[in-house]
């Protein structure tokens, strides 16, 4: 019995070795290299991208935004003819797997995409941890991965060459919130930070804490709570005892909602409430209704921003309208930045592939590193580590039910309401 198992395992091992050995030879054929062809008319070809995205599990929601962003870009570019590779026009395809928000699964599925499905290039998952592990696979096979869903510095500080991210680095996330509040009210003094104990949120919080101190603020409370927490009442009690001017949350959407409910339950009044993730997702307003008023969120991208590019979307507004046209008005009242950062990943690929004239992973990677592009997403340009160079905007959920960009001033399309109204006067 065990000998039989051993034999099966060794046969499987040999097969997988063979597969890996064949890999470099197989890759270019799938990629549609710009082979010289007598026929001048565009030849049909397909570029396949692979992505393991969280469609179930804790970050299913955000993973869904990422997928929707990829899909919109795919459909629109295919309608417009596809990617220009050399003298051919190639349609694009995306192969998805559900990583269930789990980093290990994400890595396994990414490996499967490379070795079994033989995709040409990789797109990223959602979340710092899945991206951290999936990008290691991309590096191992030397296939580029552009991701629009992971912002943790730890993804980029390993000296990897094949990972590129379209979200600003986590430590910068809440900086613009502090800037925005300071600009409105120079007398603001104290800040409390509630942190989910995952790597990404900790980087956000550490960055925010350092910046707050630099700006002369006093951090009166900074504590972590476990991921998947269902009760934050005692954190709220502790925060209330510190009576902070500003309450910052570094976590995910479900936590932000739980914290806002807790703040109202215990009537904790601060002048400003802000969360790294949450307020920009449509669920935040839907679940909290009026209690979401005045809350600040951040985004590398909002539809109010005034970017201009020559891509298929052109402007943020156009991208948002197309999202609504494709997925329904009610689902994308506010278009979350994750959808845009995901679409921007494919846009970066398009430009790099066109510049390289092939889908050869190394050539595409080198073009990505050189990329400097004006687009609906703003400037797309990567640091040597692979992180996009990009400031964050601040948005506010207005009592009129809409979301306005309130900072920086040149992108603002609404008034920054400050301080937030106390709970018992709403």
């Amino acid at each position, binding site marked *: 019995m065990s000998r039989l198992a051993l034999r099966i395992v060794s046969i499987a091992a040999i097969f997988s070795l063979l597969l890996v050995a064949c890999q470099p030879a197989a890759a270019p054929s799938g990629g549609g290299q710009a082979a010289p062809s007598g026929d001048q008319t565009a030849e049909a070809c397909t570029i396949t991208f692979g992505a393991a995205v969280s469609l179930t599990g804790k970050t299913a929601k955000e993973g869904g935004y990422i997928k929707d962003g990829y899909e919109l870009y795919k459909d629109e570019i295919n309608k417009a003819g596809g990617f220009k590779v050399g003298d051919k026009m190639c349609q694009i395809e995306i192969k998805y797997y559900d990583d269930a928000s789990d980093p290990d699964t994400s890595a396994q599925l990414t490996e499967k995409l490379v070795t079994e499905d033989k995709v040409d290039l990789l797109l990223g998952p959602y979340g710092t941890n899945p991206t951290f592990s999936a990008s290691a696979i991309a590096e191992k096979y030397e296939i580029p991965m552009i991701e629009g869903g992971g912002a943790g510095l730890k993804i980029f500080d390993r000296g990897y060459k094949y990972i590129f991210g379209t979200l600003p680095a986590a430590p910068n996330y809440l900086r613009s919130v502090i800037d925005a509040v300071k600009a409105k009210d120079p007398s603001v003094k104290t800040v409390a930070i509630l942190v989910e104990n995952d790597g990404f949120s900790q980087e956000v919080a550490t960055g925010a804490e350092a910046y707050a101190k630099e700006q002369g603020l006093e951090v009166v409370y900074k*504590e972590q709570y476990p991921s998947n927490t269902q009760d934050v009442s005692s954190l709220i009690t502790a925060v209330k005892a510190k009576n902070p001017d500003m309450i910052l949350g570094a976590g995910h959407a479900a936590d932000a909602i739980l914290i806002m409910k807790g703040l109202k*339950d215990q009537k904790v009044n601060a002048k400003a409430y802000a969360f790294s993730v949450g307020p920009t997702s449509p669920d935040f307003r839907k679940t909290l209704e009026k209690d979401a008023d005045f809350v600040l969120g951040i985004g590398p991208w909002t539809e109010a921003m005034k970017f201009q590019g020559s891509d298929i979307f052109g402007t943020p507004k156009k991208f948002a309208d197309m999202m609504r046209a494709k997925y329904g008005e009610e689902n994308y009242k506010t278009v979350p930045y994750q959808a845009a950062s995901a679409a921007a990943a494919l846009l970066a690929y398009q430009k790099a592939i066109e510049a390289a004239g092939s889908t050869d992973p190394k050539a595409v990677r080198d073009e990505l590193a050189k990329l400097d592009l004006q687009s609906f997403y703003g400037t797309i340009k990567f640091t040597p580590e692979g992180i996009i160079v990009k400031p964050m905007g601040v948005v506010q959920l207005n009592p009129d039910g809409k979301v306005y960009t309130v900072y920086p001033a040149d992108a603002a399309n609404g008034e920054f309401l400050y301080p937030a109204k106390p709970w018992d006067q709403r």
Partner: protein
Amino acid sequence: MSGILIGQSAVNVLLLTGVLTIAALGFSIVWGVMNIINLVHGATIMLGAYVTYIAFAFAGIDPFLTIPLSMALMFGLGYLIQRGVINYVMRAPMLTTFLLTFGLEIVIINLAQFFFKSDLRAITTGYSGASLTLFGDATQNVSVEVPYIKLGALIIALFLTALTHLLMNNTRLGRAIRATGMDKDAAQLTGAKIGTVYAITFALSAALAGAAGSLIAMTQSFQPGFGGTYTLYAFVIVVLGGLGSVPAVAIGAFVFSLITVLTGLWQPGLTQAAAFLLLVVVLVVKPSGIAGKAFYQ
């Protein structure tokens, strides 16, 4: 200042105890009577939450009034699950039922994901977040607050817990359930139809989980996967309090809440670690739990 802190923390502990008691009660009964670690429990809580959500969002029914509906539907579902699936492996080792309920949980969660999507849902009524200021001055951020919804949830949880206690101790059905839990062969000899008893026990547990789901739905946001955490909480609470009686569950829930709230005040990152550390200590020092007995009595 610290008086406020202590007062609010005491309120937090009491409010949390109520919801967690009702969330763990059904889990404890199934474990005690049927010797099954029921991993479907969290999924049942989740379904209860969605029943309340749907009734509220589409029919405008007040969430508190949806609790009987949620309990009735989950009672039916629990009955079907036991009769249709679990009954076939009742005499199998614990690992079999463990794996079976694990699989069932995944099926239910994925079905829920298919129908409800993974959107975060919450029930926001006109009185959501309104609270009673016990003392202090709310405008200065110095006060002890009791949110009405959580107070209502506590009262309903206490009511249902007391009702379950009466049912288990003062009715023929309750005696049959307890007798079956103690010795199924002897119970059968004295006339208890153990198939029916098991099905009703499981259904009763599911109904309680449904009620818990309805209550939880009013106080937090949820999506199809949220119940798993409550299965875990229920497990810890039942081990802490011990198997064997309704009050033991309440004691377990109280200890769990106390630890959660106290750790949450000083080192919130360690709340779950603290709860599980306590679990380990209890298992080593008093394996039957703080108030545990051999059977339901």
